[in-house]
């Protein structure tokens, strides 16, 4: 018989009940609204990107974090100035919370000159050192030691930062997960590592990825603090991340947080995810992180349904300027292809091997 947590986390009822870090102190109204706004903004930016993708404006792949906004937003909101975050592909929310404007996201996906990498890299593969965001590479797990190294270095420089990065249930199989977390622990690095356990790594279900019951079970193997949280409850995610950051910041070592969630789309836009049982998607759709917080805000009288509807419409409308800016932005000059490889040549030079063009 399926256990009680099957209702909370469909598809996991055969595992032991997770030990969830619950919200300890109620969050302020202002904070709850900010969490809500950022989740809605993230969802709407990705939805607009879906439209642009179908219109052929996104030249490469589109990867969405639908259903996981509670994790990207809740974790990033718990950070402070001077903290470092290394977002993965489904963590657009974290980037925007830290200050990345939606127009950067649109320009980047549409490979425009005004994008943060000027067309050199794709999707959410961009960072902003000023905002404390460092860009991922496609090879999973690689951010873990890099973000740990950044946080360690910043502490050596007299700051008191946390480095926060993410990995999926699939990425947690990569060697860098082990090497990175193990070495972060030996350096006592102020690292907070979020495992977004969303059930699938591309088409591979979590059971084929790892035989530990929950990913948090790995924490003791590294001598780090492990926590579990309902990834679709943004308030609980925020709260758990705060506790984890306090722990890491006070010099007690890295923290591993397993956020239990579900991937509501395919791996990328081209993937119809027909391998995911329909019943599972249907069950999880009743646990949408935006819906959960919206219901709470209305039920608890923080905002009326009408006010919430207006707020969501306003967020949607505000994106128009951003994607229209991106649509009007030029494609990059071809010479930008070869510049910036080394410190000596920031601008590319015409290559005689392309003289025939």
């Amino acid at each position, binding site marked *: 018989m399926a256990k009680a947590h099957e209702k909370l986390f469909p598809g996991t009822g055969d595992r032991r009940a997770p030990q969830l870090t619950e919200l300890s102190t109620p969050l302020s109204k202002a904070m709850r609204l900010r969490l809500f706004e950022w989740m809605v903004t993230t969802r709407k930016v990705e939805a607009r990107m879906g439209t642009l993708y179908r219109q052929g404006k996104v030249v490469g792949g589109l990867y969405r974090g639908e259903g996981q906004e509670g994790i990207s937003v809740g974790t990033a909101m718990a950070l402070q100035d001077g903290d470092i975050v290394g977002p993965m592909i489904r963590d657009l929310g974290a980037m925007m919370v830290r200050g990345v404007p939606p127009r950067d996201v649109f320009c980047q996906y549409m490979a425009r000159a005004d994008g943060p990498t000027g067309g050199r*890299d794709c999707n959410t593969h*961009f960072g902003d050192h000023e905002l404390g965001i460092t860009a991922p590479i496609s090879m999973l797990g*690689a951010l873990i*030691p890099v*973000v740990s*190294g950044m*946080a360690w270095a910043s502490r050596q420089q007299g700051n008191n930062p946390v480095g926060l990065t993410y990995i999926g249930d699939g990425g947690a199989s990569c060697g860098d997960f082990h090497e990175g977390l193990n*070495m972060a622990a030996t350096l006592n690095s102020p690292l907070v590592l979020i495992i977004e356990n969303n059930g699938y790594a591309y088409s591979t279900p979590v059971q084929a990825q790892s035989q530990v019951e929950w990913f948090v079970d790995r924490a003791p193997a590294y001598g780090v603090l492990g926590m579990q949280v309902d990834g679709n409850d943004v308030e609980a995610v925020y709260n758990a991340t705060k506790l984890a950051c306090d722990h890491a910041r006070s010099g007690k070592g890295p923290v591993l947080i397993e956020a239990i969630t579900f991937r509501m789309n395919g791996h990328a836009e081209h993937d119809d995810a027909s391998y995911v049982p329909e019943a599972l998607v249907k069950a999880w759709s009743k646990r949408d992180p935006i819906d959960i917080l919206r219901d709470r805000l209305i039920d608890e009288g923080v905002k009326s349904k009408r006010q919430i509807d207006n707020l969501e419409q306003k967020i949607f409308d505000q994106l128009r300027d951003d994607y229209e800016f991106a649509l009007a932005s030029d494609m990059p000059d071809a010479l930008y292809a070869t510049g910036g*490889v*080394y410190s000596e040549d920031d601008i590319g030079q015409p290559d005689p091997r392309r003289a025939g063009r």
Partner: protein
Amino acid sequence: MTITYIEAIGEAISQEMERDPSVLLIGEDVGHYAGAFKLSKGFLESFGPDRIIDTPIAESAIVGHAIGMAYMGMRPVVEMQFIDFIACAYNMVTNFAAKSRYRQGLACPMVIRGPSGGGVRGGPFHSQNVEACFLNVPGLKIVAPATAADAKGLMLSSIRDDDPVLFLEHKYLYRRIKEVVPSNEAIPLGQAIVRREGSDFTIVTYGAMVFEALEAAEQIATETGAQAEVIDLRTLAPLDMETVYQSVRKTNRCMLVHEACLTGGPSGELAARLSEEFFDWLDAPILRVAALDSPVPYSPPLEDYFLPKSVDIVFQAKRLLAY
């Protein structure tokens, strides 16, 4: 006072650490044990555990952490206990460090250094030359010194460089080369040097093969009177082709020598550039002398057969001159 090749490298690192507090050394057994080759003897006492960092056996995480430190403005020097182990960090070096400036506009000033090369009976995993695996990776600089003075001067420049530098030390030279080394003269990356002047043919090489080439040049001169010009590239990326071209303009014959395996080795790139740009100046085909296409074997007769020696250079030089 003369110092060895390995002492020269250690001196360069400690001098930079004294000059610049952002420089640190990180790797396996570099602190208490002072490194497998004792390069960092006394470093831990001088600089403390925050700047001489002993790590777990985790090359990928070591390079990964160093990248993070470099992003924050530090200048980590990463020791690979043997350069062969860089295979375990290939992703970090080629995908994270090398593409950092291009993708993020973020400087990644770091040196990844370690003992490379054979001739010490190290077997397949403690003897390799890895430069060819990294030459095809834009964003990396690759240095391979042959003398103690170069090792020091190039290490000073490598640490000060704003790009990731792969610094290939030849372990056969570690204690065999001993010379007077300038106290603080940085040698710019990307500059080859003429080790022996000659007008009859050019030998382009680097690393430990410089000495095989010089020995061969003397023998050829004695036997035939032909004078070889020996060029030590010193830096493989960027490549100083101008020095090579200048020599070939004079000699019109060129051979390429390296200890890396033949197929796909750096000589292929050099030969291609020479034939594309300098075909008219060549009176003979470009010949190559390199290690054979096998893993580095352990047993002396096997490794000695595998490695290029001066006798092979002499043999090929006679073919080159006779053409």
